[in-house]
């Protein structure tokens, strides 16, 4: 008999997977040499030294602010427009071409255009993030809105829920699953977008530090910043997004 029980991802195997990546990294670094690739240990050492560098706080702080603003504004814009478009099919039709345009345009094209419009700096980076992240949030919100239980919606009308109560007690909980997934994707994509935009056209931030390390052949520094960015994504996912998803889905756990 085939067991249909859903098993959690095995931590033991996940650790083995991580160990294999580290081993592959170590072997490749030894083969390519320190100029092209730092070893894991050299990377960790360089990362431990990063906080003592003169511009570390500036670069890290600027990047964190850009990520927070880019992801926050992008998600808020996508969610807000998604809510309105979910309620009004005319607005949904009106926004559809723009949604398609933004989702089909390669990010690098947006980066080039944003550099022309805004020059180098935070405005350009945040603009790109908002423009690239909002459509994903928008699509998930609209899909979720269209799937909201019509019976519950009617109940909220009979009991005269205010728009705010309807949003808080009906739409947001009903959208928790698609929104949780969209928020996770937006956060990870937001970090990547900000760093990419900084590499291509900013005068500060983690991406700028990465580009600097590359141009000075500081392989350990390059890998240290990369590892730091990975740790940031992991921190956001495990400390913020997963607990949020667990809280939003606790009623389903109670039912299981």
């Amino acid at each position, binding site marked *: 008999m085939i067991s249909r029980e859903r098993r959690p991802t095995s931590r033991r195997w996940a650790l083995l997977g991580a160990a294999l990546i580290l081993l592959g990294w170590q072997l490749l670094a030894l083969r390519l040499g320190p100029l092209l690739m730092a070893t894991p240990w050299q990377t960790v050492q360089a990362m431990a030294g990063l906080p003592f560098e003169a511009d570390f706080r500036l670069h890290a702080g600027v990047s964190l602010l850009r990520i927070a603003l880019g992801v926050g504004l992008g998600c808020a814009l996508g969610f807000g427009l998604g809510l309105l478009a979910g309620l009004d099919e005319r607005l949904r039709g009106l926004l559809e071409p723009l949604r398609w345009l933004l989702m089909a345009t390669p990010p690098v094209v947006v980066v080039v255009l944003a550099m022309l419009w805004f020059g180098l700096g935070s405005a350009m980076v945040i603009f790109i993030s908002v423009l690239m992240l909002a459509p994903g949030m928008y699509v998930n919100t609209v899909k979720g809105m269209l799937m909201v239980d019509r019976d519950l919606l009617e109940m909220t009308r009979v009991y005269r829920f205010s728009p705010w109560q309807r949003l808080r007690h009906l739409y947001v909980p009903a959208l928790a699953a698609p929104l949780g997934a969209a928020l996770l994707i937006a956060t990870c994509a937001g970090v990547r977008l900000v760093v990419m935009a900084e590499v291509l056209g900013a005068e500060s931030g983690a991406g700028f530090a990465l580009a600097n390390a590359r141009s000075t052949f500081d392989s350990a520094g390059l890998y240290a910043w990369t590892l730091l960015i990975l740790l940031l994504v992991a921190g956001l996912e495990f400390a913020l997004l997963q607990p949020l998803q667990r809280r939003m889905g606790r009623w389903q756990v*109670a039912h299981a």
Partner: protein
Amino acid sequence: MLDWRGVNLQLGGRTVLCELNLQLRPGERVGLLGGSGAGKSCLLRLATGTLTAQHGSLSNGFRHAVLAFQEPRLLPWCRVAENLEIALRAAGREASVARCLAREWLARVGLGEFANAWPQQLSGGMAQRVALARALSVAPDLLLLDEPFSALDPALRGTLIELCRVWLKQSGAALLCVSHHPDELLPLVERFVLLQAGRLLAFDPAASAVHGLSCALPCG
């Protein structure tokens, strides 16, 4: 009062209500009978304002009409007491008052100890009791019941009908109640109307006539 004249309602190209007349005075209690698909639930939705008639004069002087649906329709992501609290907050009660009233009404329907349960953890009958408690707790002046006792066992049905009867007497609210079993409505209503071919027909409230009608009504 509620005063409808010549009301026509069409849904999906089908005429549900045709030249319908209905008057309901404050405090009046009416049982609404009719076969499956006769349009009883649509008539209740018209009274709540969630459906709009195409033609006719619809005057509704009631302050707050609340409908207890055929299904409980509880918010699955809110605990049982929260479902009542939210409805009470929507009806304009303060948060602390809503919390007290929610617990009080749950206790009245015998579910005081399930205040912190999730709706999915309740049986169908228990969920229906919560839905009834929610409808009564917001103190409407027009209570609309759409077969609210159908999922309950006979003993519990009697208890809740008595609870409704006492509440209606104390509050002075009007009632329009749909049921396939007119005899169970006898303690609650003063008169019956039958919805047939989109029109309302008056019925003598005498028990014998009602029992005769019960046999004639298709169940479902």
